[in-house]
């Protein structure tokens, strides 16, 4: 803790950690009782072999290699091997779920092409699924089978890797099926890992992490693969799908290994409450769990409280909760709530929050509870600006709601190969997060997103993508589709709703249309739509200029008024002006008020 911080590359961290044979990575595998353990010395050797095998394919420093590897151990060593050879890994999520995902192929192809990857490493099974990916990405020279690479015994040729070199590209889902590659240098990673481990979590060598998080995602990859290398901590990995199938495995693994640190998005804690039977865990002891991090999607204090209530009888301490704010563009973490305090909420007047964009403290039952995510790490800045403050010239005062913007050494150098998008991402040297929030006592409070992202189980989806896919269904009026997320009627997760206009008559044909929309969206995007609402022509709310109103549609849906709307579109000018003002903070209002049951 009191050590002086000296930034190191990931390569240096791997080599430094290799002195330890007692700590390392353990991989839980569903198919066997054995849990293969790689000490930090073993991690050094296994990654060197992978690095050598990648060099033998002709890859050199600065080249990109795409990785689609569902197996945790394969992914980790291929990733670290590439990094040690100075090759830039590009993690891509593996196909999951039901059906053949045409949208998955499109996304994957885009990432491969945009990153300019020369080689794609994957399994034989996924290689078959990808089919002719190579033909569509001109820069891609080879699709390599991970098993063939593992069989190789090439020596790693040492490569000089510097702090300012790119370490890897983290592709984030973007609007209209265009993921962008966040470029992270070793310097970014060293700075953010220092912030997370030393400043945020006060990690000591005795800490043992447990993670089921997907490793192609920043929270799993940086938080549980890279950070523990710098701090020589042991980590036990579970396959993400095993957690989703049997959430009790997370709890059971934490208890068995006396885990001290684990993270998950809000939905993971809710899933444990929903799915785990008391009898499955009654014999376990969770008292070693000192940091239960929650991030990557909006945090709902109620969900975390329910988790603490359920598991406190087996030793879980609600004070272990740490609320986190972060994003790929800031490497991973932006701020953490203080250790040992549990979930802290700021009670504010909900009405004023969205009508006046001011977080006024309020102490009664009608107050909205906004989760506090702590303050900026040292050397990093968080400030709030009006979304139209193009140069970040006028920071807003405390408790004023606006766009959160960031500065500091954890910020990406830019989106790979996207100078224009990179320029748009910053305003006067500050990164525009697109998140709405306010500062109170210097602590960050997130109220919503100005981009109307739908987050389901920790993954971001853009309504425009869903609307585009739904529009392709025969019978749906093109351009008259609105997709949105809502926390109603249940609070445990975001539900996905698509409202559309159609000339298809009500009855059996409309029912068929609903099924078809679900099918098409699921196959293209891999997302299950909870509700499809076919409406008569002219029913969806539009502004006087003819723009569809997503926030308004959601509001009508939540108050059960959407179905009741007549077939004539009403354009009320006063209403329209109010809508325009509100649309900016539409999500925001929904995030707040969606969480409050109407009392009248």
């Amino acid at each position: 803790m009191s050590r002086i911080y000296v930034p190191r590359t990931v390569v240096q961290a791997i080599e430094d950690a290799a002195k330890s044979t007692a700590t390392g990575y353990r991989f839980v595998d569903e198919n066997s009782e054995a849990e293969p353990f790689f000490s930090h010395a073993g991690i050094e050797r296994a990654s060197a072999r992978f690095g050598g095998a990648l060099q033998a394919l002709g890859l050199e420093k600065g080249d990109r290699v795409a990785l689609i590897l569902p197996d945790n151990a394969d992914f980790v060593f291929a990733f670290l091997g590439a990094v040690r050879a100075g090759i830039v890994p590009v993690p891509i999520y593996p196909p999951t779920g039901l059906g053949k995902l045409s949208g998955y192929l499109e996304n994957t192809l885009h990432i491969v092409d945009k990153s300019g990857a020369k080689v794609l490493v994957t399994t034989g099974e996924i290689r078959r699924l990808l089919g002719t990916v190579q033909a569509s990405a001109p820069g891609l020279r080879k699709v390599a089978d991970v098993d063939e690479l593992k069989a190789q015994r090439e020596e790693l040729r040492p490569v000089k890797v510097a702090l300012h070199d790119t370490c890897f590209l983290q592709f984030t889902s973007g609007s209209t099926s265009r993921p962008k590659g966040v470029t992270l240098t070793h310097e970014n990673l060293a700075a953010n890992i220092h912030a997370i481990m030393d400043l945020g979590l006060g990690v000591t060598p005795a800490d043992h992490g447990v993670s089921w998080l997907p490793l192609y995602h920043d929270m799993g990859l940086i938080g549980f693969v890279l950070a523990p290398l710098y701090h020589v901590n042991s980590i036990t990995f579970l396959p993400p799908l095993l957690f989703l199938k049997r959430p009790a495995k997370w709890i059971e693994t934490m208890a068995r290994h006396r885990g001290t640190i684990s993270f998950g998005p809000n939905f993971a804690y809710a899933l444990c409450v929903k799915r785990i039977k008391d009898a499955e865990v009654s014999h376990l002891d969770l008292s070693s769990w000192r940091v239960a991090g929650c991030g990557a999607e909006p945090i709902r204090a109620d969900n975390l409280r329910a988790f603490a209530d359920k598991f406190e009888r087996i030793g879980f301490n609600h004070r272990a909760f740490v609320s986190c704010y972060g994003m790929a563009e800031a490497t991973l973490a932006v701020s953490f709530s203080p250790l040992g305090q549990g979930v802290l909420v700021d009670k504010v007047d909900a009405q004023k929050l969205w009508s006046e964009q001011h977080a006024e403290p309020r102490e009664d039952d009608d107050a909205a509870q906004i989760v506090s995510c702590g303050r900026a790490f040292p050397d990093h800045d968080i400030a709030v600006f009006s979304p139209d403050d193009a140069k970040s010239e006028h920071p807003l005062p405390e408790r004023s709601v606006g766009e959160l913007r960031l500065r500091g050494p954890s910020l990406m150098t830019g989106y790979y190969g996207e100078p224009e998008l990179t320029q748009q991402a910053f305003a006067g040297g500050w990164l525009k997060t697109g998140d709405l929030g306010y500062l109170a006592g210097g602590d960050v409070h997130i109220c919503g997103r100005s981009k109307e992202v739908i987050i389901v189980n920790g993954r971001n989806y853009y309504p425009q993508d869903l609307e585009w896919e739904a529009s392709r269904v025969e019978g749906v009026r093109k351009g008259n589709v609105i997709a949105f997320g809502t926390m109603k009627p249940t609070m445990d997760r975001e539900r996905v709703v698509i409202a559309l206009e159609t000339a298809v008559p009500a009855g059996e044909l409309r029912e068929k249309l609903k099924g078809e929309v679900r099918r098409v969206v699921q196959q293209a995007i891999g997302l299950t739509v909870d509700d499809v609402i076919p409406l008569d022509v002219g029913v969806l709310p539009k502004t006087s200029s003819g723009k569809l109103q997503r926030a308004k549609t959601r509001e009508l849906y939540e108050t059960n008024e959407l179905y009741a709307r007549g077939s004539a579109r009403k354009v009320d000018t006063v209403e329209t002006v109010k809508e325009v003002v509100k649309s900016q903070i539409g999500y925001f209002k929904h995030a707040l008020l969606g969480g409050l049951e109407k009392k009248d």
Partner: protein
Amino acid sequence: MTWTRDSVRDAVMEILRPHAQNGAELSETSHLVADLGVDSLGVMEVVADLEDKFGMRIPDDSLRDVETVADVARAIATRLESEGRLEK
């Protein structure tokens, strides 16, 4: 225990019934996503229940060819048959 195609189908329907959203009617031709509204987390819960019920491990990548209730029952029956646990 041994199974028949009928008892497999009945057991699969029993497992899927609580997952049918918004009162959707369950039949062999029901599409899991389009008709029943099962989402990706729901799918994993169904898989866990199927594994427990039929005493087997269902590989993660075996779900891609499954779309309807009948597909699920067929895939399970095929597995049981290969293990000699299905009566003709």
